[in-house]
């Protein structure tokens, strides 16, 4: 970050002010102030979201799209307004291109089941990267097991960046879909999505981006990316769990078969036949998580009201500072050091296993994640069973990094 940006940051984006909007961050654990660095697993919620949830239940609650009464109209309005917020957040052309799902896992399964499954024949190829989360692996394994699809894995360089040449070579006339992460949850690597999408489109191959992390740290613009499918999950976006969304280009949605069957997704049901509603409702069977959707809308409205370039500069400063501090100790080994990465730092430490590190520093009030991060192929790539991961959010500060380092130094004393 330039000195100029450093000077401007506190004026445009004040992390302490943002932090004060998250009540949970004021609490203590084990008598120590909480340092919450497990944001890639799930982020905390600002007052704006908590208030939207409270209002959703306390003042405006009824089922959506069914009743003709006042509250049903009101909750339907709020629910559809949340869809519009997601569309605005992703810069989708229309709200109808946004399907509510229960999270990105559900969104990815929706694409696999409704778009890919009817189109995949034995020998057809799906291109993934070795960075993928199990949520963007297992649905494709289903197609391999059930229909003979072939999974092709794009490799990475040691610094965690994608091997672009190898990726391009995987694109063949058998490739039916490229399904890749926008940003790795385990390493923080940001993929050059626009470029990759252009490569795939040049060969007529559609692209699905798993935006579970990307949507949190980058400001994805689905039209600029020209991406075909983009999956997001609410609980990482400062919103509730149990809600997420799939963006899909209208042309794909029109051509996709329904996902789950039930109420809300039909036009007409007789004893002999059924016809389906138009997108997006065709893909939303049953009573949705109404208030969670409204909460997600509130979370994205909250994010959109921030000075985004300044917020991003703050996250860039945090991760740069964390890497700088880690660089001071030769017993700490960050995984994923490419410059093209977001605010996630995965590492191993000499003499201590990630689980022991996590248990130990938890007692200093520092919450991190230890494990394989649902990315076992990636762990195998680095030949480690697990890593410790510190992942940052807008409300974290350099002081949080310092607290993490202090805790790691104490941990080192015990295990070295």
């Amino acid at each position: 970050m330039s000195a100029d940006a450093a000077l401007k940051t506190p004026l445009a984006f004040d992390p302490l002010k943002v932090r004060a909007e998250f009540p949970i961050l004021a609490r203590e654990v084990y008598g120590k102030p909480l340092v919450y660095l497990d944001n890639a697993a799930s982020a905390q919620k600002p007052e704006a979201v908590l208030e939207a949830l409270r209002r959703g239940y306390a003042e405006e609650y009824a089922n959506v799209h069914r009743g003709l009464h006042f509250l049903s109209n009101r909750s339907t309005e709020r629910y559809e307004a949340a869809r519009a917020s997601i569309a605005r957040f992703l810069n989708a052309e229309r709200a109808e291109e946004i399907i509510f799902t229960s999270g990105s896992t559900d969104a990815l399964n929706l694409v696999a089941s409704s778009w890919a499954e009817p189109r995949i024949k034995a020998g057809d190829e799906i291109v993934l990267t070795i960075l993928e989360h199990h949520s963007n692996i297992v649905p494709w394994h289903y197609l391999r097991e059930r229909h003979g699809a072939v999974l092709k894995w794009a490799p990475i360089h040691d610094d965690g960046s994608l091997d672009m040449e190898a990726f391009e070579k995987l694109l063949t006339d058998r490739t039916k879909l490229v399904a890749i992460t926008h940003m790795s949850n385990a390493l923080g690597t940001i993929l050059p999505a626009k470029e990759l999408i252009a490569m795939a489109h040049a060969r007529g191959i559609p692209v699905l981006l798993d935006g579970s992390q990307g949507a949190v740290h980058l400001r994805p613009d689905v039209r600029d990316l020209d991406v075909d499918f983009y999956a997001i999950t609410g609980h990482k976006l400062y919103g509730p769990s149990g809600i997420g969304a799939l963006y899909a280009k209208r042309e794909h949605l029109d051509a996709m078969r329904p996902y789950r069957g039930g109420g809300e997704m039909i036009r007409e049901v007789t004893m002999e036949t059924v016809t389906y509603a138009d997108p997006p409702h065709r893909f939303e069977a049953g009573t949705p998580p109404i208030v969670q959707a409204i909460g997600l809308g509130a979370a994205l409205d909250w994010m959109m009201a921030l000075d985004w370039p300044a917020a991003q500069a703050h996250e860039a400063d945090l991760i740069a500072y964390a890497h700088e501090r880690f660089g001071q100790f030769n017993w700490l080994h960050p995984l994923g050091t490419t410059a093209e990465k977001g605010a996630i730092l995965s590492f191993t430490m000499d003499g201590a296993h990630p689980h022991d590190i996590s248990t130990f520093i938890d007692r200093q009030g520092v919450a991190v994640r230890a494990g394989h991060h649902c990315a076992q192929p990636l762990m195998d790539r680095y030949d480690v069973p697990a890593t410790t991961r510190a992942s940052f959010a807008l409300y974290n500060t350099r002081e949080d990094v310092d607290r993490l380092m202090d805790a790691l130094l104490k941990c080192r004393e015990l295990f070295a």
Partner: protein
Amino acid sequence: MDDALRDLYQQTILEHGRKPHNFGRLDPHSHAAKGSNPMCGDRVVVTLTVDGGRVADIRFEGRGCAISQASASIMTDLVKGRPLDEVRTLLDAFTAMATTGETPGGGLAEDDREAIRLMSGIHAFPMRVKCATLGWRTLEAALDNQSQTTTEAQPGKQEAAR
């Protein structure tokens, strides 16, 4: 460092974790099993030879946290040379201790109880109990002639992991 941590990471445990006893693979052996904890990816392999109703020799290998390595190491020390009925008693006592924090009195020699109590600090860390039981569950699977187990299998009714 707080008391719960100090209880969990006692010097003896750290030493076992750093330099596990009976580490490696016994070949030939009469019983063997692989155990894994799908939650965290930790793995151990237990190989042993049963001769005349006793555990004549036993080794384990694997990678994992200090707790899983130390627990498996202490286990091999404890069961080596022991008749199988005593091994089963130890196994049950350890499992009970890890899940309840209490060491059952009945049928255990004072030395055994002390050895098992070494790991009783785990009880304050529910998320880590499976780290401590992994080696023991794998030994149980080996004795039951099951080649694989996971920490998700029910005690006493091990399902073969796929």
